[in-house]
């Protein structure tokens, strides 16, 4: 079988692992081809991650680790994103549902958006986290805010709000909850950190 014409930009083998570079626009099409074509059958998405290099000229890479459980074969697929450009790729959630949290993590840590993802929000940092994307090279090691401000925001965060109703497994019991708790949960992730009172 031949891959979709023009999709493959470059193919290299590093440490005995084949790596293919795919154009951003052709990613979804190529992934679908890799998953469904007999002889490819990459039925398992191991990981999705991203790389930013110290060299500012080099593009960011989104890396997909694929495995074919049937063929016992591995493949790395990379998509290059220019930092000057819009940082977004198509979500592969439609092909592998396991991409859900993996893509959320990349979104959280690198600020890369995945178009078509059903629930793209932060996963490691909390929803009201305002300091940026921690794994980007321009992110300071100790964060952007002072320690006091970080502590203030953390103490003012509502721990229940890190989870959606479904994640709390109480969606069905919603009507039985006390009014104030229901309100809090409804505000949920989209809550805001209160501003410090004026001195």
């Amino acid at each position, binding site marked *: 079988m031949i891959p979709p014409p023009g999709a493959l930009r470059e193919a290299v083998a590093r440490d005995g692992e084949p790596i293919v570079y795919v154009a951003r626009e052709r990613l979804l099409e190529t992934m679908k081809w890799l998953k469904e074509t007999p002889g490819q059958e990459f039925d398992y998405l191991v990981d999705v991650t991203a790389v930013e290099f110290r060299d500012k000229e080099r593009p960011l890479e989104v890396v997909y680790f694929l495995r074919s459980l049937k063929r016992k074969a591995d493949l790395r697929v990379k998509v290059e994103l220019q930092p000057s450009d819009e940082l977004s790729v198509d979500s592969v959630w439609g092909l592998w549902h396991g991409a859900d949290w993996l893509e959320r993590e990349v979104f959280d840590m690198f600020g890369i958006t995945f178009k078509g993802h059903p629930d793209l929000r932060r996963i490691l940092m909390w929803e009201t986290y305002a300091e940026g994307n921690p794994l980007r090279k321009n992110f300071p090691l100790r964060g952007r805010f002072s320690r006091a401000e970080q502590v203030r925001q*953390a103490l003012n965060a509502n721990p229940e709000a890190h989870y959606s109703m479904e994640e709390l497994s109480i969606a069905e019991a919603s009507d039985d909850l006390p009014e104030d708790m229901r309100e809090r949960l409804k505000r949920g992730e989209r809550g805001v950190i209160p501003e410090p009172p004026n001195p």
Partner: protein
Amino acid sequence: MKRVGEVKSSNYLVAKFEDLVDWAVNSSRANSLWPMPFGTACCAIEFMATAASRYDFARFGMERQAFSPRQADVLICAGRLPFKLAPVIRRIYDQMPQPKWVISMGACASTGGVFDNYAMVQGIDTIVPVDVYVPGCPPRPEGLLYGILLLHKKIKGESLFDAVKRREEQPLDEKGLRLAPETIDEISEPFGNSVHQFRSA
């Protein structure tokens, strides 16, 4: 000095009533400390070793571990505390009934340890008041036991009748902070090896 009466026997002792009450209250508090384990990392493994048969902190009155803050006396934070867990440990602390004590177990809980980064609280004393800091990475069970015995000593020095030595509730201020912002910044400053890393790097 006025004589109040003839004492027939020599088997008596004079003491202040306050001291008697403090002695009774503090001994019973110190000798039956129910720990609330807040284990977040490898220190929790050493904590479990301290609780297990070889070291066995039940010997020091910690027979019952309270996995609910409502029935606990001492919060033992064993492990690093990320900012995401800060409101959680604060809520657990607030839910514990008075009087309550906190042991910060290990380098990370006490100072942030090697995790001088964007995600980690630089010492849980910026979140809850800490009574005993146990150093180590992680501390050996002997270290934790020593910390617990130090806490016993501290409890026995408290007094119900002395405002300075009395244990009071320590709520957050109107900004939602326990310490002044300058104090938090100061105690969160890099130290040791991490002074070589710039804040902006």
